[in-house]
């Protein structure tokens, strides 16, 4: 299989793995089971690699990875996720991780979009404007 056909096949498999616009673990398992039965090993490896990349990207599109300094209540995390779900038009779930290097505030990453409301970024911008 050529690289283009592998990418197209992985895209098709990803579409089969979505349930309501969200990656479903059951559907992913079914797709993998079907693949292992229908494809030989040397054809399966590049296809599985491309499928894994697509699944990770799709999962990242549905996650709001929140880095925060200090405590962040689950309600605030949900509020952040709801904000991005509303903005992007798809369901987004929060994944929070504490990072005190941000000093205060938080940084949210949804797929390739980054929103930074941290004190460290503001200090960096201040330093840049002063220099």
């Amino acid at each position, binding site marked *: 299989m050529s690289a283009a056909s592998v990418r197209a096949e992985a895209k098709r498999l990803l579409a089969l793995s979505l349930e309501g616009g969200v990656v479903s673990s059951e559907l992913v398992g079914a797709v993998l089971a079907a693949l292992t039965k229908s494809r030989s090993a040397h054809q399966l490896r590049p296809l599985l690699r491309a499928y894994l990349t697509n699944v990770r990207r799709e999962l990242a599109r549905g996650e709001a990875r929140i880095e925060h*300094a200090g*405590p962040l*209540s689950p309600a605030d995390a949900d509020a952040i996720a709801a*904000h991005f779900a509303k903005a992007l038009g798809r369901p987004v779930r929060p994944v929070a991780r504490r990072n005190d290097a941000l000093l205060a505030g938080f940084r949210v990453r949804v797929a390739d979009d980054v929103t930074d409301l941290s004190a460290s970024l503001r200090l960096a911008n*201040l330093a*840049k404007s002063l220099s």
Partner: protein
Amino acid sequence: MTFLSALLAAAEHAPAATKAAAAPAAHDAPAAAAHGPVDTIIQLFGSFGVDGPHLLIQLINFTILAFVLYRFAIKPALGQMEERNRLIEKGLADAQAATQRLAEAQKASDAKLNAASDEAAKILADARNAAKAAVEAAKAEAAAAQTEVIAKAKAAIEADRVKMLAEVRGEVSRLVVETAAKVLEQNLDDATRGRLNEAAVKQLAR
């Protein structure tokens, strides 16, 4: 010729005188009447002591002598004199021509000298003008180069100053920010950070 004409004139006057003297000597008349004028002349010369044959011989001798003298002495002498005169005249002419040529040469040399002097003066003036122009050009070039060097130096100094100010400003900013970050990191407690996070959530919601 004058001497001969005098003799002829005397011969013409002689019959009258002989007629006057022949009256007393009438017996000589037949003899005198028998001689011609040539004889009379001969006699007259004879009365003066001139002997005809001798005179003729002397005339012949004199003629020969005159011819010899003329042929071998006077004529060569005259020729030499003429040659000498010709050489002298030629020498004089040559000397005059040489004098004239000398004068012309002197005049030509004076003219050439004057022309060379004028040319030298002109060359000297041109050289002075060229040197003056070269000095002026060098001065202008040096002034331009000096101005350019000064401008470059000023620009370099200004660039260094701006660069140094930027570096100082950046360093000061970095130190200020680092200090502020350390102060915040040490002084912010979880309660304050929680409040700040809530404020950020509200800011995001807006």
